[in-house]
């Protein structure tokens, strides 16, 4: 811990951040569940949607972070995501996630070979612009953040063959998250500028549309208790590839915050058609550990 603190104190001095460099730097000072969870691409948010919240339990004087493992069982595919995210002074969030999209026996039918997997790495950056989701209860002002997700996949030749323009892409988003504490209700609206096909797993841009599209994402969560939130999400996606239709993703979820160090989310997700396979709806399970 000591060397780490020393390094951080040097960084703090260099960046001019007047933060107490001690054990206080890592104290989980925010309220339970007010951090959300890590979404599929690694950013703090819901399951599908990045929110304006900075990950981890660090206040504006502290650093928080967490790791996540998520698995989604679909009729023809499985989707896994593992990653880590760090929140700096409730202002900046850095995240990384590795996603694996396993085509199982459908890979054989698609001519890719059984068990063929698409992999994607996502590096995320988020900046809280203004607002505090908990404290701003006397106004309509949400917490607002901007973010970018730098995505790259490893399947260049196949992505090219299905019509994708690129195996790399950058998503940019603006997220507004509002907690209506009086109603025990949290709402998020996020707009994303993206070229990604199926979150980027099937590349970026396509033969139908090669450019960026504006997409809408939204989440609603109702707090049943301090530890449990239930809700639903929607995320529209581009439809860039002519070989396979792509639609809107939805989910209904329950998140259980056991402690500030451990939470789990279970959801039923509807991802619609993926790579010509209809009705890819299934169970989403995520485990998260952090501070």
């Amino acid at each position, binding site marked *: 811990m000591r060397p780490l603190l020393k390094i951080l104190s040097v960084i703090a001095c260099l960046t001019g951040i007047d933060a107490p460099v001690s054990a206080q730097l890592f104290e989980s*000072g925010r309220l339970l569940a007010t951090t959300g969870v890590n979404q599929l691409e690694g950013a703090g948010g819901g399951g599908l949607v990045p929110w304006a919240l900075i990950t981890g339990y660090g206040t504006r004087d502290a650093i928080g972070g967490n790791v996540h493992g998520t698995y989604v069982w679909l009729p023809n595919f499985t989707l896994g995501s593992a990653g880590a995210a760090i929140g700096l002074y409730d202002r900046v969030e850095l995240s990384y996630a590795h996603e694996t999209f396993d085509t199982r026996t459908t890979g054989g039918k698609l001519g890719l070979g059984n068990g063929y997997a698409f992999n994607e790495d996502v590096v995320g950056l988020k900046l809280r612009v203004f607002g505090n989701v908990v*404290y701003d209860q006397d106004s309509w002002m949400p917490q607002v953040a901007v973010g970018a997700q730098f995505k790259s996949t490893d399947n260049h030749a196949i992505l090219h063959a299905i019509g994708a323009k690129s195996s790399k892409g950058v998503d940019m988003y603006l997220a507004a998250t509002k907690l209506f*504490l*009086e109603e025990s209700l949290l709402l998020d609206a996020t707009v994303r500028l993206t070229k990604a096909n199926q979150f980027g797993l099937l590349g970026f841009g396509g033969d139908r549309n090669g450019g960026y599209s504006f997409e809408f994402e939204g989440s609603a969560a109702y707090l049943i208790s301090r530890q449990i939130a239930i809700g639903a999400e929607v995320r529209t996606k581009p439809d860039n590839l002519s070989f396979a239709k792509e639609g809107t993703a939805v989910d209904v979820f329950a998140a259980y915050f056991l402690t500030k160090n451990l939470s789990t989310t279970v959801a039923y997700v509807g991802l619609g058609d993926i790579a010509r396979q209809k009705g890819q709806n299934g169970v989403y399970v995520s485990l998260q550990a952090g501070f």
Partner: protein
Amino acid sequence: MAHWIIAFPAIAFLLVAAPEAKATLYDDMGGKEGIDRLVDNSIKSFLADPRIGKTFDDTNMVRFRTMLTAQFCHIADGPCKYNGHSMAVAHRGLALRQVDFNALAEDLQSAMDVSGIPFRTQNRLLALLAPMQRDVVTK
């Protein structure tokens, strides 16, 4: 069809009338008795908290109890008037951080649990207290 013609004005009336019939937060917190119990449990919980207990070392706890009771009653639309210092003045010089404010909120939450205040009612009180962070936290 006839049922709907009757039902519509009835529903409209209920929607308009409902806010007036709504009990105040003060009532939902159990009135004077409920708030006295909550303040007792809160003070116990604040003082026992190693994170913030020391903040109250120089506090006149008799006055603090009176002021906290009046404040809760006042903001919950009860029949009281809070005449104490503003939050900024009351916390001046304490150099409180967000983590201290949140620690107190957590203690208040557990005090509300002990006092038997339902979760949704707890959140209504917390929603009124949360904006005070801006005046309380100075560091």
